C-alpha cells in the first residue's frame, strides 16, 4: 500500500471553487443485468446501496454506486477495500453473466466544491448545471473539454469528477484554469 500514489498526489487549488485531487479511491466496474434481483442483492450486501436509477448515484457508508450505462455500475469505495469487495461480488454473482473488475488505478478522481463549482464545470462540459437541473445524486458521463469524464453531485456544492488516470494532469489543469478567481460568470 505504501507504494501507491494517486496521479496528482493530493494537489489542490482554490479559486472560484476548490479543486482537489481526491487521492487513492477504490473503484470497481460491475457489468451485468441491472434488473436482476441477484445482482441487486449482491450490490446491496457488498455496498449497502440500492441499484441507482438512470443517471443517478446511491450512497451508503462512504460507498457510492454510480449508474454508468444500462448494464454497468461503478462502485466507488475505500481503496484498501477493493480487493475484498471484488471477491465478494464475484462470489455472490457466481453463475450469473457478470463482470467485476478493479479499476481503482485506471482512474483519477477530483472534487470540485464551493459556490462556483457549477460554473467551473459548465466551462468544460456540455451539460446544464442549473440548480434545478443538476441535483444532488445526479450523475453524468460526458466530455470534459477534450477527454471523456464523469461526475456526480454529492451535496449541493460538491462534485466528484472521474477521468482516466493518464489524463489526470490535463483534467486537473483544466479545472484549475476554469476556476480562475477572475473568471466568475455570475450565472449560478
Amino acid at each position: 500500500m505504501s507504494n501507491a500514489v494517486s496521479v496528482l498526489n493530493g494537489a489542490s487549488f482554490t479559486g472560484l471553487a476548490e479543486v482537489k485531487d481526491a487521492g487513492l479511491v477504490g473503484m470497481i466496474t460491475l457489468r451485468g443485468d441491472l434488473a436482476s434481483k441477484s445482482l441487486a442483492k449482491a450490490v446491496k450486501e457488498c455496498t449497502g446501496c440500492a441499484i441507482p436509477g438512470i443517471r443517478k448515484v446511491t450512497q451508503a457508508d462512504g460507498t457510492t454506486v454510480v449508474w454508468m450505462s444500462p448494464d454497468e455500475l461503478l462502485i466507488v469505495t475505500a481503496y484498501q477495500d477493493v480487493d475484498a469487495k471484488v471477491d465478494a461480488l464475484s462470489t455472490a454473482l457466481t453463475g450469473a453473466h457478470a463482470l467485476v473488475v478493479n479499476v481503482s488505478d485506471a482512474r483519477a478522481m477530483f472534487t470540485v466544491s464551493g459556490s462556483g463549482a457549477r460554473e467551473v464545470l459548465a466551462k468544460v462540459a456540455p451539460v446544464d448545471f442549473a440548480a434545478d437541473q443538476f441535483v444532488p445524486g445526479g450523475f453524468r458521463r460526458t466530455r470534459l473539454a477534450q477527454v471523456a469524464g464523469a461526475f456526480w453531485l454529492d451535496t449541493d456544492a460538491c462534485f466528484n469528477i472521474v477521468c482516466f488516470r493518464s489524463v489526470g494532469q490535463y483534467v486537473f489543469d483544466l479545472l484549475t484554469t476554469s476556476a480562475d478567481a477572475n473568471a466568475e460568470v455570475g450565472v449560478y
Partner: protein
Amino acid sequence: MLSVCERSADMSTRLAKQGRLIDRTKQIVFTFNGRSMLGYPGDTLASALLANDQMLVGRSFKYHRPRGLVASGSEEPNALVGLGAGERFEPNQRATTTELFEGLAAQSQNHWPSLEFDVGILNSKLFSRVLTAGFYYKMFIHPKPFWKHVYEPFIRQSAGLGKAPDKELKDADTYEHFYFFADVVIVGGGVAGLQAAKTAAASGAKVLLMEQNAHWGGRAPVDGGTIDGMEAEAWVTKTLDELRAMENVTLRDRMMGAGVYDHGYLLGYERLTDHDPSKGGPRHRLWRIRTKQIITACGAIERPLSFAGNDVPGVMLASAMRDYVVNWGVTPGKRVVVATNNDDAYRTALILQKAGVEIACILDARRLGGGALAAEARAAGIRVEDGRAIAKVADGKRVTKVAICLQDGDGQSIEEIAADAVAMSGGWSPVVHLWSHCGGKLTWDDTQAHFRPDPTRAPISHDGKAFVVTAGTSSGPLELSAVLTDAAQAGATAAQGAGFPAQTADPASAETMPETPMEPVWLMPANADIQHRMKSWLDYQNDVKVSDVQLAAREGFESVEHTKRYTTLGMATDQGKLSNINGLAILADTLGSEIPQVGTTTFRPPYHPISMGAIGGEARGDVFQPLRKTPMYDWHDTNGADWEPVGHWRRPFTFLRDGETVQEAVNREVKNTRENLGLLDASTLGKLVVKGPDAGKFLDMMYTNMMSNLKIGKCRYGLMCSENGFLMDDGVVARVDDDTWLCHTTTGGADRIHAHMEEWLQTEWWDMQVYVANVTEQFAQIAVVGPNARKVLEKLGGMDVSKEALPFMEWRDGDIGGFKARAYRISFSGELSYEIAVAASEGQAFWDALMEAGKEFGVMPYGTEGLHILRAEKGFIMIGDETDGTVIPQDLGLNWALSKKKDDYLGKRAHLRSHMADPDRWKLVGLETVDGSVLPDGAYAVGNGVNGNGQKNTIGRVTSTYFSSNLNRGIAMGLVKQGPKRMGEVISFPGTDGKIYEAKIVDPVFYDKDGEKQNV
C-alpha cells in the same frame, strides 16, 4: 447657377452639451498613431477620434483612398485599426465598437508612409481603370512565369487588411467557453429585445437576453418617441429593472449573438475585458448555448446612398451622425448636407440643428418630398429640396463641397454647396443574419425596399418546428409602436414554442411622428454617367463601386453569388452589412431583373468577426490538448526522455545521457538490452478484459486465429482484421479463466479496439453474452528484457519465474518483490523477456525497485526507438509501419495466423475477393543495403518501364528502416511485388536526396533466426 458659400474651418468636435453615454467629469488619455488625445469614459474610440477632429481614420484596401467613419456601430466598414502592442496587438478592430480606456493605443492601417501622405494613393490615380471587377482573375493569368516572381509577391504585399501580430509572440490573454441552457434566448437589447424578453419571461420560461453593446435600449433613446407615456430611455431603465428582478431572467451586456446553428445551438461572444484590460480574467468568453427558442431583436442597419464621392471622409450614415451627437456629444461637422430617400434622416437634421450644427440643406430624392418631419424641418428654417440629389462630393481627405443635381437626371450639377459633412440615408435593412444562419428564408418588402424574414419559412429544429422568431425592426417594421407590438408577439410565440403557457401579448404603447413612405434610390442620381458611377462606392472595405458590379453583370456574372466573388462585394470583414442590398439592387437593375429574383448571398456566422482566442477557449498552453501520461512519466522526464507523441500519449523515444546524440543513445539501449538488461515502459499497450459464456466464440470472430481453444494460463499472439480484410491491430491474448480473456492491443489501439468490440457486440451479435472492459490504465506494465531478465526478477523475489514454472507464452499471477503482479512471458524483442503488470498507482515504485535491483545486471531503460529496432531485427511487424489500412495478413507472411478451422471471422470473406488473392500483391521482405547504409524511410523501389506520367513504375516500398547496432548495419523491412519469390535480388530505391539506394531482398528475420534467445 453656381455659388460657393464661405465657410469656417471644417471640424468635427465635442459639443458643449449632449452625450448621454459619456461621463464628462473624468478624462481619458489615449493615442492614435502615437498622437496623444483626450476622451471621456463612455466614449467609443470612434467618438473620441471625432471629438479630436480625427475624421480620417484609414486608407482603403485597393486604392488607398482616404476614408473616414461612416457608421457608429458594428457595421462600420472603414474605421479598422490595430489595437494594443506586442503580445496584445490585434489588427482590424472596429473603432466604433471599441470602448475607450485609459492608455488605449490605436494605429491606422493600409498606408505608407503615413495616414496623411500615402504613396499607395497612386494606385488609385494610375490603376483605377484597371483595378476593376475581376482584376485579379484577368491580370494574374498571363504570362505564367510572372506568377511566382511578380504577381505573388505583389498580392502577398497587398493582401489582407491590417498586419498580422508578430508570429514569435503569444497572445497574453486568456479565453474560455461556457455552456448554457435556456428556454428562450433573445439577441439584442434594444426596446424590441426588452419587450420580447419581458413577455417571454412572464410565461415562466428561462430567458437569456444579450446585448452586444455596453448599454441597453438600442436606437430608441436617440431616435425619440415615447413608450408608455415616458421617454424611451426611462422605459428602458424601468424595464431593465423589472427584468433584473426576475429569477428566470439572465441579462448579459457586451455579448453578441455570433451565430445560430442546428437544433437551437447559439454562440454568444462575450467581451469581458476589452473595455478595461486592467481587469484580469479571461478576455472573451464564448457561450455555447442550447435553447428551445431564439428571438432575434437585432434591429436594422441604415443603407448608404450610392453617389459619386460617397466615400470621402465626412460622408456618414444619417443615423450614425445623430448617434454621435446624442450619445457622445460629438458633431462630425459644422455645416452638414443631408441626403435621403426617407423621412427618418430628417431626425438627424433636426437633432443636429438643435445641437447648434448648421444644416446647409436637406436633399430629399423623393419628387414629392417628406411628411410631418419634413414640415418640422422647414418650420425650423432648414432648407429642404425635394427631388434633388448629390451629384458629387469633391474628392479629398475631407468633405469640402457638395454638388447637387436632380435625382432624375444624369448628374449635371446645378449648385455647389460648401459643407464639411454629409449625412446620407438610403433606407433601412433589417438585420436578418441570425435568422438566416440556419436556413430562415427572406421575403422582399416593396414598401420598405428591403429583405425581411419570412415567418412562414423559419429555421427548423430537431422536432420539425420553427425555433427562431424575429422581433421589432429585425422583422421589418420601423415605426416604434409596431416594433413593440411585434416584439411582444415574438416573446409570446417563443414562450409557447418553448412549451410555456400562452401569454397574451401586451405590448407597451408608443408614440412617434408619422412618416411618409420611403422611395428606393439605388443610384444617385438615377441616370448617373460612368464618371459618377466610377466614384460611387458600394463596398467601402473592399473598394467595390457601382461600375464594378455593372461590369460584372455585363461580363456574364448574373448569379449574385458569382458577382460577389468576382467583384469581392461583401467579402470583407464587415461581410457587406452596408453594401449587400445596394449591390444586388444595382445587379438586378443591370440585368433588367427584379431584386427578389436576384436574391441575396448566403449569410454565414459569425455575425461579426470573433477572436480566434474565443474559439479556442481554454485550449492553450498546458491544456492545449490532453497529454496522456503513464505512471512513470515524471521519472522518464527527469531521466533524459526524448519524448515521442504516440497519439495523445507521450512515450520516451530514447533516454539521453549527457553529451549523447539521439542515435548514440538508441544504439546504446539496443545493444544493452541484447547483452544485459533493458526496461521498457509498456503501460500504453491496450488491455481489454473480455468475459462471458460467449467470450470465446466472440473472440474467434474478432481474431483471425483461434482464441476459444487457448488454455488457461497461456498466451497467444493474435491478429485482427476489419470486415474489409485489412489488418487493423495485433497483440497477445491471455486466457484468464473459463470465461475470461485479456486482450492486449497496440498503444493506439486500446480505445479503437474497445469501440470495435462494443460495436459488434451491440449492433450485430447482441444475443452473445459477453462483457468487455477497458482496463488499460489500471496497470503499469513494464517489459523486463534481456539475458539478465530472469536474474533481476529472482533477485526481487517472490514468484517463480523459472523456465519450468513460467514457460514462454504463459502468464502467472503472484508477488514480485512485494508487489502484486501479473507476469507474462512474452517477447517482442526476441530476448528472454517478461512483461510485468502492477497496479498503476504502484508503477513508479515497481520501476524504482527494478532499476535498483537491476544495477548489478546492467539495467538500462530503453525507449520506443529501441523497441522498434529490437523487433525489426527479429522481423516482427508493427501495426502502423508494416500496415497502413491497405495491408492484409497474407501480405506480411502471416498466413499461419489465419485459422482454417473457423467458418467465419471478421475479414475472412474479404480475403477471398479477387484483389486480395492477387499474386502480384506487394509482400513483406527484409532489405539490406548493398553498402550497409540505412535505407530512407518510405522510399519506393522502382522497376522497369514507366507509367502514364512518364514516372518509373514502382514495385515496392520501405515500411521500417533502422540502424542496427547489434548487426552494425542498416536493416529494413518493405513490401515488394512478389517479394518472397525474389530473395537475393538487388532492387533500387531512389531517395529524395537524389541518391539511388541499392538493397538486396532478404529474409525479414535478421537476428537469431531460430529464436533460441527468447526461449531460455
